[in-house]
């Protein structure tokens, strides 16, 4: 076991890990941050997406030791300081961008990474960026609508087909 230190949601944290400890395991089991979901555990579904130094990564496919010293943001870090839902989260609620909610933490983290890179994405941009995030419930239309709404664009004309 070795000690790793990183910043998670603005807080300095450390813990004992094995070489093979995944970032997702460290977050969920080491820090109790169970908002990061593990769906496939094979880097296919995107439920486990978090930000490492601002970039979206699949936390089930990176070792905790490999991101020692990095700044990690998880879904728990997306709420406003007063605890109310952040902009992207609120848009998912307003536009019914979730049903069971299992994929939602990863969807929100990917959407936030997209908006940081591209503040006014087109519908095609959103669909392309979310290719690595799989949702078994919604059929995606309302997720796309929520992301466009979170970018401040008018979505009254975007129908759930």
């Amino acid at each position, binding site marked *: 076991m*070795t000690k790793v230190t990183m910043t998670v949601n603005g807080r300095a944290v450390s813990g004992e890990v*094995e*070489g*093979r400890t*995944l970032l997702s395991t460290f977050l969920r089991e080491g820090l109790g941050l169970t908002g990061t979901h593990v769906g496939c*555990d*094979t*880097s296919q579904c*995107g439920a486990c*997406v978090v930000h*490492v130094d601002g*970039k*979206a*990564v*699949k936390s089930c*496919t*990176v*070792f905790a*030791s*490999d991101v*020692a010293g990095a700044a990690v943001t998880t879904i728990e870090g997306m709420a406003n300081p007063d605890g109310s839902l952040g902009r992207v989260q609120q848009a998912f609620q307003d536009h019914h961008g979730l049903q069971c909610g299992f994929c939602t933490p990863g969807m929100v983290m*990917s959407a936030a*990474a*997209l908006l940081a890179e591209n503040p006014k994405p087109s519908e095609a941009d959103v669909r392309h*960026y979310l*290719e*690595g*995030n799989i949702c078994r419930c919604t059929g995606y239309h309302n997720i796309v609508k929520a992301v466009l709404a979170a970018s401040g664009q008018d979505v009254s004309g975007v129908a759930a087909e």
Partner: protein
Amino acid sequence: MYAFDFEKPKTVAEAVSALAREDAMALGGGQTLIPSLKQRLAAPSALVSLTGIAEMRGVCTGDDGALCIGGATPHAVVAAEAAGKYPALAALAGNIGDPAVRNRGTIGGSLANNDPAADYPAAVLASGATIVTNTRRIAADDFFEGLFTTALEPGEIIVEVRFPIPARAAYAKFQQPASRFALTGVFVAKTAGGVRVAVTGASENGVFRWSEAEKALSASFSADAIAGLSVPADGMVGDLHGTPAYRANLVKVMTQRAVSAA
């Protein structure tokens, strides 16, 4: 996963010595290696992460005008930083997998792995790029040795990949929609020395050059120039996504699309 030691050297020299340990393995972005470790398909004694080696990360221009990409450079960085100098390569990198895969997966990992459906091998072979390792330089034509096999020796690290810039180039990928790997992808590069055409995703032996098309396109660089050619279905991959004959036809169609886009 079996247990292993984790090392994160800061220089190529340190990485080379860490990899000298019996059964040690290099770790690039882990996007291929971590899933296979989870399946217990490998049991390394140590993983040596290459992502902390500054000299292996980033994109620059060499004295000879070549585009140099550090072996541990993620696909997303190539997509962003090669766009001005080699747009066809940047577009290829920007279409690998999904954003999270592109933020971790590296060019060196992709080439070392030599998946028969991976994208980078087509660009490297068509461009006539050079693979620079810690011990030598390997021409693209000598690097790929069939399915998941390359000229790399155990413990040898891809430090850099150098791409000469073609006059015209494009990559046309017919995507397998579930995996986003290439069902068939063709990279076409037109240089002063002639045209090179490299095909990924189609052959049971991995990436290959389609020399008949190269000859026809060197004479006349147009989609029509290869209209009369056909690719034999022999040796093409057949699976639930497509028959060998379907892939053989895709090779021609994607070559024509790449030529039109170049």
